[in-house]
């Protein structure tokens, strides 16, 4: 029940705990471990909409805990606001645990796909060189088009985009942020504990 967010508030004294947290907006990754139920996605996004917070990206996937899903949500907000949102997320009946991380507290990646014409690949060696230099790879080479895949930080996938642009990108897509915490155990451990307690 007691997450890091409670401790933040607890450990600091009343008069200054709000000052203690940076009031500037910054990048946060919010995670939530949940049951896999219809409508929960909506329930969670409502929490952001209600406070007019823009969700920069949202990814749902399985987690390391069997049968438990995981939301990974990227926002740029103040820490105070993020704490409130995390508590509201955890309050939802089907959420087992939620927490948030600052940029330096996670290892994060995004995945981007770039589609360009096969012609621009064959017309010179530039594209191949660019792909190599960016540590990207060809996912597929078809008769009329090739698909390049690159994972990395936003600025890295963006840099590749900028370099490929002159060759004509006919389609581009980037996934939401996925991230794991730099803590030894993520909140998955807490979730396992909750499940173990519920099982007895």
């Amino acid at each position, binding site marked *: 029940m007691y997450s890091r967010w409670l401790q933040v508030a607890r450990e600091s004294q009343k008069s200054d705990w709000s000052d203690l947290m940076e009031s500037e907006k910054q990048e946060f990754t919010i995670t939530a471990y949940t049951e896999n139920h219809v409508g929960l996605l909506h329930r969670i996004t409502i929490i952001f909409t209600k406070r007019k917070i823009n969700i920069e990206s949202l990814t749902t996937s399985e987690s390391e805990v069997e049968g438990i899903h995981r939301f990974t949500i990227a926002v740029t907000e103040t820490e105070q606001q993020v704490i*409130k949102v995390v508590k509201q997320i955890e309050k939802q009946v089907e959420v087992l645990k939620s927490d948030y991380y600052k940029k330096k507290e996670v290892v994060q990646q995004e995945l981007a796909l770039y589609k360009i014409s096969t012609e621009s690949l064959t017309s010179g060696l530039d594209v191949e060189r660019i792909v190599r230099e960016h540590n990207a790879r060809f996912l597929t080479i078809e008769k009329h088009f090739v698909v390049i895949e690159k994972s990395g930080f936003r600025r890295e996938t963006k840099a590749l985009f900028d370099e490929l642009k002159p060759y004509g990108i006919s389609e581009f897509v980037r996934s939401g942020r996925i991230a794991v915490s730099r803590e030894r155990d993520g909140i998955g451990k807490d979730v396992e504990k909750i499940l173990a307690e519920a099982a007895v």
Partner: protein
Amino acid sequence: MATAEAIEESTKSKPKPTKRMTGAEALVQILLQENVDMAFGYPGGAIMPVYDALYDHQDSIHHVLARHEQGAIHMAQGYARANGKVGVCLATSGPGATNLITGIADAQIDSTPLVCITGQVPSALLGSDAFQECDVLGISMPVTKWNFQITKAEEIPQALAKAFYLARSGRPGPVVIDITKDAQFGEFDFAYEPCTSLRSYVPKPKLDHAKVKEAAELINNAERPYVLFGQGVILANAEKEFKQFIEKTGIPAAWTIMGLSALETDHPLNVGMLGMHGNYGPNLLTNECDVLIAVGMRFDDRVTGNLDKYAKQAKVVHLEIDPAEIDKNVPADIPVLGDAKESLTELNKLVKPNSHEEWLQRFRDCDQQEWEKVIEEELHPKSDVLSMGEVIRIINDVTGGDHILVTDVGQHQMVACRYSKFTKSKSNITSGGLGTMGFGLPAGIGAALGAPERTVIAVVGDGGLQMTIQELATIYQTKAKVKVLLLNNEFLGMVRQWQQLFFEKRYSSTELINPDFQQVAKGFYIPTAKVTERKNLEKAIEEFINYDGSYFLEVMVGKENNVFPMVTSGSGVAEIRLE
């Protein structure tokens, strides 16, 4: 995957002997097993199988036919808050369900346990814009504690078990169960096991004894401690423990409008009402206490005024069941998460007997000032014009404070809550968080049906009454003994007051040209009377209260009276105005 299997995964249930029946019949069986003796609703195509099943159980489940679904849900709210049980509400799909939304939002913000069951078009038609199809799950999601759509009869037992458990446990709230018509008709092997826990849900956080100890130390060393209490005390049935706490420590206690009646009005440590139209001392002295102890309240902005000027000097102890309320508006130095009853029981063991006579005297001094500037004239007006306050004063005299007060929203609500006397808990039913006009009359009916042994007085304004006035018919049909007191100022008084104070008396669309309410009440076969002069008031109120049955009393009060004191928006609590 929202299937019966998925729910089963997250609930603990043992197989029981089964009996074959339809979904609708199963639903009614579940209501019986959950001790539902009354439901409020309105039928229609998509919920007809359930109504048909109810027909066979009229002896055990009294269905109250409202005249509008909003009326039905406010009745369910009034019922739940008067007797502490889960309010059950039924409506058909589409417009039936959307008409419930205001009440669901009201129940959500005021933590009222409700299970709302809505019919839905057959599952095969979902998403086809079928007749009376509406995305009830989507619409109700922001205002429910939980909601769920049932598309197969087999899902009914577990979904309903979860619904009742979630509505009533922890911090209570409304739950919506949307059932497609085919699921109501479908036959299956029925067995029922109530839900008692869900792995993803923590109804009551475990009490942190270290925090209780810290809180006790702070309280024991405080010079000017001050308690604020809210509905959490009532919802946790912690009235006794709460009283022990303040009596042992000698700490003055003020209430939020939702906490009203948890402590009897005449208790020497009950210093009055918090907030925008609360009492003078409770607001002013918030900024002079050294330790502020909040019990089961959420620091609503109507209570705190400008947060930048709120209790900055005080150490804050916050006893609260919902972790999301901690630090939401007012940061807590010592949060004590847990059910108020448990927290207070533990705290009572550790606090030292004490008294704060000098500090308490400060509140009494403020009371004296408020009496001279506001209360005396409100309760004993020198002018010929009748005041709302004197009406309430006479009601107190007649009932002795034994009644349940239900209010609508506006000036009459503030006056009724400020001046009513209470001797019992669960006796104040009002729309606090949402401020829903139209709440009072139907909630009064629900309260009268939920607590038939009590005298229930619904105080309403001429504006709000007309939002759900059709429910007068429900009074006639159910014989609910609710007393309806209309404080008629021929204005949307509260808005007019703001226009007077902040919009240069530009009374834009607040004057009401009203119908003849006497004729209206008569048309609904409700005994009625109207008072326009002081000399008739007392007798009329006695008749109103002592009459065995529902009664409609209209009192013409000052058109342009104002409610004071007032913490105007943007001001701090200490800037409370007496005039």
